[in-house]
């Protein structure tokens, strides 16, 4: 005890007050301020995604079109690379020199010393097998498996499409499903069946330490989900005829579409020129994509559904069927073809100006008499009197569109085009209202003029004829998953409002085309095929070769549309190719043809269009004015209309100038590649 005894209280008070200061601050930090729990969670909780295997795609016979193949990345964790480490041996294993080794290690070090980074990318299974056993001798190195799409048969690129990293827009639209760096279908079936193919991603919540290394499950894995692999798709394609078709179309520009009429399943979907889908996978995909994009023949252009062609003579049966249904003609209706057709006061030349004499419906189809179908078309468009062109035309248009022309067929692929089936309002705009008559638009009657169709629409038209009046919507995927689920809309018949008995005369005519008509050279011994050639031209000196057909006549199993651009007569190129496809599908072999044509000849033929003309051709729009109206008498269906030529020429001339340097450059590149 001394006189400073009281100071114990002061000291105690100071201690108590300071401890209270600490407690006050703790109270604020722990109870009042809510941010810190969130900070802590966001620092330590990390979401890891388990990407499921993407669904494989098979052809209709179970052959693999796309599968996932394992590739191996060799990963390095720099701070685990410890002596004894034989750098020389290691470099030998990877076939690199020490400088390269040091460069890669420096890069890995820069990324992180304690986390894995890629040392060697995407080794093939064969390459990996050679180093697999020895890799464990080197501390710090591990392998990581990654799955890539591979296409064992290298076919059907435009059907299969490709996958690529998601864009910001996809991420926004997906509502949180996609993240930066994910892959998604960009085109083709990969895009349209993305939600089925991708499967369901697994999510793992993990705790990570300050260096980002996983340290265990968050909430004991209660919120984790496992990855569910993507569904398997069974395509309707038949890989045999798909491959065969691509070979036949080699070095040609055009398209083959084959459909099974009894189901609407697409058997063959060739767009030429094509490319190897394997180019769009892996390390060099960007480079390959750029090269393909620059290719003037545009391999990315999906011709079966995006290219528009005048159907030409292959359209003629449609007019006849509609007219028959409406009682405007009968199979016995005849027309005397003097080699030209008189519409109003105009003379329009028949094909090649030859006289067909008296033709009935079947003969008109078989001989492709323009005059007959001009007559049929005028009957249709003038059925309400020749002044009421407008309403009769609209009625005609409605009937035609039932055949799937001028409208999308809802193919299960992205990017399908409508073709072009002009409306009455279109002509009202071009000519003033009431200023056009049947003669003005008469070229529509023979599938020319503004009428444009995709190869898919033409093939579908053949299915309708083969089925005597209905079609199934064409589709490329016949079953999803193990249960082979199919969308119900693909199992419903779409009727075209023409009774089945009216088809016989047309079919008879189409059979004659192959038996002894224009396509006689493509006759397949022992198979009754019905077909129709078309020689449709747009604005080129050389015609597009068109052929549509189905076979056999009774119980049809395949309907085909073939278009070879800038090739000439339908019978010359398209028809033989179609006949090979038909025979290959029905018999799986090619018999000796009496006409002597062989698939090898077509496979080897190179009829790629001249680049100078070609650049503008893809961009050619529907003809703005009806050629016949301005041209009058001198028009035949393979000749140009001069009045129409003028504006187009100037327009295309400009384009030509603009594109020329690019095209030349592309050509030079191509040559270099070949050497």
């Amino acid at each position: 005890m001394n006189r400073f005894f009281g100071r114990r209280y002061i000291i105690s008070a100071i201690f108590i007050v300071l401890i209270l200061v600490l407690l006050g601050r703790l109270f604020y930090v722990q109870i009042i301020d809510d941010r810190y729990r969130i900070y802590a969670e966001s620092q330590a909780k990390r979401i890891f995604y388990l990407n499921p295997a993407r669904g494989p795609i098979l052809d209709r016979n179970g052959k693999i079109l796309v599968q996932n193949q394992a590739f191996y990345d060799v990963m390095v964790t720099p701070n685990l690379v410890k002596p004894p480490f034989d750098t020389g041996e290691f470099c030998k294993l990877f076939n690199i020199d020490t400088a390269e080794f040091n460069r890669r290690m420096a890069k890995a070090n820069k990324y992180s010393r304690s986390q894995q980074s890629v040392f060697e990318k995407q080794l093939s299974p064969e390459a990996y097998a050679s180093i697999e056993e020895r890799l464990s001798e080197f501390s710090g190195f591990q392998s990581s498996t990654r799955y890539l799409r591979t296409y064992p048969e290298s076919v059907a690129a435009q059907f299969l499409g490709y996958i690529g990293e998601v864009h910001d827009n996809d991420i926004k639209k997906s509502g949180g499903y996609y993240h930066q760096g994910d892959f998604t279908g960009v085109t083709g079936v990969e895009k349209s069946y993305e939600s089925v193919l991708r499967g369901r991603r697994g999510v793992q919540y993990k705790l990570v330490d300050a260096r980002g290394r996983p340290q265990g499950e968050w909430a004991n894995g209660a919120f984790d989900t496992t990855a569910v692999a993507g569904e398997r798709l069974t395509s309707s394609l038949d890989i045999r005829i798909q491959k065969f078709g691509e070979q036949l179309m080699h070095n040609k520009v055009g398209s083959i579409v084959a459909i099974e009429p009894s189901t609407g399943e697409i058997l063959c979907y060739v767009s030429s020129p094509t490319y190897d889908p394997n180019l769009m996978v892996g390390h060099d995909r960007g480079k390959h994509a750029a090269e393909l994009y620059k290719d003037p023949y545009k391999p990315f252009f999906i011709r079966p559904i995006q290219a528009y062609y005048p159907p030409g003579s292959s359209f003629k049966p449609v007019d006849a069927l509609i007219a028959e249904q409406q009682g405007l003609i009968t199979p016995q209706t005849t027309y005397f073809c003097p080699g030209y057709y008189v519409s109003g006061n105009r003379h329009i030349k028949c094909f090649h100006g030859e006289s067909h004499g008296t033709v009935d419906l079947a003969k008109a189809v078989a001989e492709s008499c323009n005059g007959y179908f001009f007559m049929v078309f005028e009957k249709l468009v003038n059925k309400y009197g020749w002044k009421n062109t407008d309403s009769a035309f609209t009625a005609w248009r409605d009937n035609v569109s039932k055949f799937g022309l001028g409208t999308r067929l809802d193919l299960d692929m992205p990017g399908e085009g409508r073709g072009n089936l002009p409306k009455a309002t279109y002509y009202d705009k071009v000519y003033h209202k009431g200023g056009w008559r049947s003669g003005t638009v008469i070229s529509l009657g023979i599938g020319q003029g503004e009428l444009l169709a995709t190869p898919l629409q033409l093939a579908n038209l053949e299915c309708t004829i083969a089925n005597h009046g209905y079609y199934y919507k064409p589709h490329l995927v016949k079953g999803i998953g193990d249960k082979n689920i199919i969308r119900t809309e693909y199992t419903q018949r779409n009727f075209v409002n023409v009774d089945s008995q009216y088809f016989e005369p047309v079919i008879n005519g189409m059979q004659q085309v192959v038996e002894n008509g224009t396509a006689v050279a493509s006759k397949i011994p022992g198979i009754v095929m019905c077909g129709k050639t078309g020689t449709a031209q747009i604005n080129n000196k050389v015609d597009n070769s068109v052929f549509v057909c189905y076979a056999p006549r009774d119980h049809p199993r395949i309907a085909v549309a073939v278009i070879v651009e800038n090739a000439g007569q339908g019978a010359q190129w398209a028809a033989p190719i179609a006949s090979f496809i038909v025979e290959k599908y029905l018999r799986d072999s090619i018999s000796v043809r009496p006409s002597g044509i062989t698939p090898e000849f077509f496979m080897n033929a190179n009829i790629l269009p001249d680049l100078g003309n070609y650049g503008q051709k893809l961009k050619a729009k529907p003809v703005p004015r009806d050629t016949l109206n301005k041209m009058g008498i001198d028009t035949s269906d393979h000749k140009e209309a001069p009045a129409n030529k003028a504006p187009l020429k100037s327009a295309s001339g400009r384009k030509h100038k603009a594109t020329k340097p690019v095209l030349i450059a592309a050509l030079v590149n191509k040559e270099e590649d070949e050497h």
Partner: protein
Amino acid sequence: MNTNQQRNFFFNVDWLMVGIYLTLCAIGVLNIHSAIFNPKQPALYDLSTDYGKQLLFVVIGISVGIVILLLDTRFISSLAPFFYGITVFLLMLVLVVGRNVGGNQAWIPLFGGFRLQPSEFAKLSTCLLLARYLSGTNIKITDTRSFAIAAAIIGLPMFLIMLQPDAGSTLVFSCLIFVLYREGLSPYFLILEGLFILLFVLTLKLNNAVGIVGVLTGLAILIILMFRRNGKLIRVIVMGLAICVSFVFCVRFIYTKVLKPHQKSRIDIVLGITSDPKGKGYNVHQSIIAIGSGKMWGRGYMRGTQTKFAFVPEQQTDFIFCTVGEEWGFAGSTVVLSLYLLLVLRIIRIAERQRSPFSRIYAYGVASAIFFHVFINVGMTIGIVPSIGIPLPLISYGGSSLLSFTVMIFILIKLDSNRMGIIY
């Protein structure tokens, strides 16, 4: 009574102190276990881990404590200068042979990978020698000579530790001002120390030394004018003003010229002059997140992500309180701080019941040292004190620190158990 004492070594032992001591040690081991838990070595007693080692230190500490209880109290007092001498020698030795860890040359390597940190023991021996000196006859702290000697006893180890340089451990010795105050030092010193802290903060925060000096002078003149007749007060005020003004300029000088950039930045962050949660302020930022995320009841034993996953650095030593805050929440933090407060107040109570001034002075030294450590360490983890690395007594990992505090506390218990005995 003497016979009783001889019969039973645990006679008159303050069991509350022992209880608090053991509780804090247990809290320490458990929190270290949780903070740096290694799933490959889960056992608490695995000697290759820090928690295993800490458990060993606790066992050693308890053994040493029992040995101390067996000693004669005279022994402790008379050997104080000897201990002090050894400590000073070790503090010099460490400057020569010391192992440099984290920028401080503070450790002398021992056998088996253990290291001795002499600065931890310097607190103990300084307290002992200070008590021994101040309890001597005719020693009054108010005498200039006695004050100077007392200051020298404190100042020598401070100086040596500053050479390491270990700012935290150096500052610990300033807490002994409470001892001197209790023994009769003028309260002006205490006020001055508080004023220094205030001025220190203001000087650096406002960055305007002249302005502060002006305000101080104005205040002094005002007080002098108000109490014109009180001559003694005027003298004190004038002296205080002179000291304060020189302090302000000293602070500025030291801050701008002497301090190293990393020390400056630590001060800057605590004072809120700069904020840099990714760089220099990372430790404190992560530490506050850890403690703040504990909320009321904490995240539970071994559930703290901040500390276990090394977001908080030095999570088992200087930042061990983060684990307490994160896993046991405000409730746990309050319990731990209350235990410390209870310990310190208990020591003060023990101090005041001693008949021997040596025991009393020593007890105040122990209380001040423990309190200072707790306040600075916890204050640092919640960002109200600059992060100067000093351990949390009995809880932080570290053998030197634990043993030093153990010996401190058990010497006190021994002295207290003998309080009825002869006064030396």
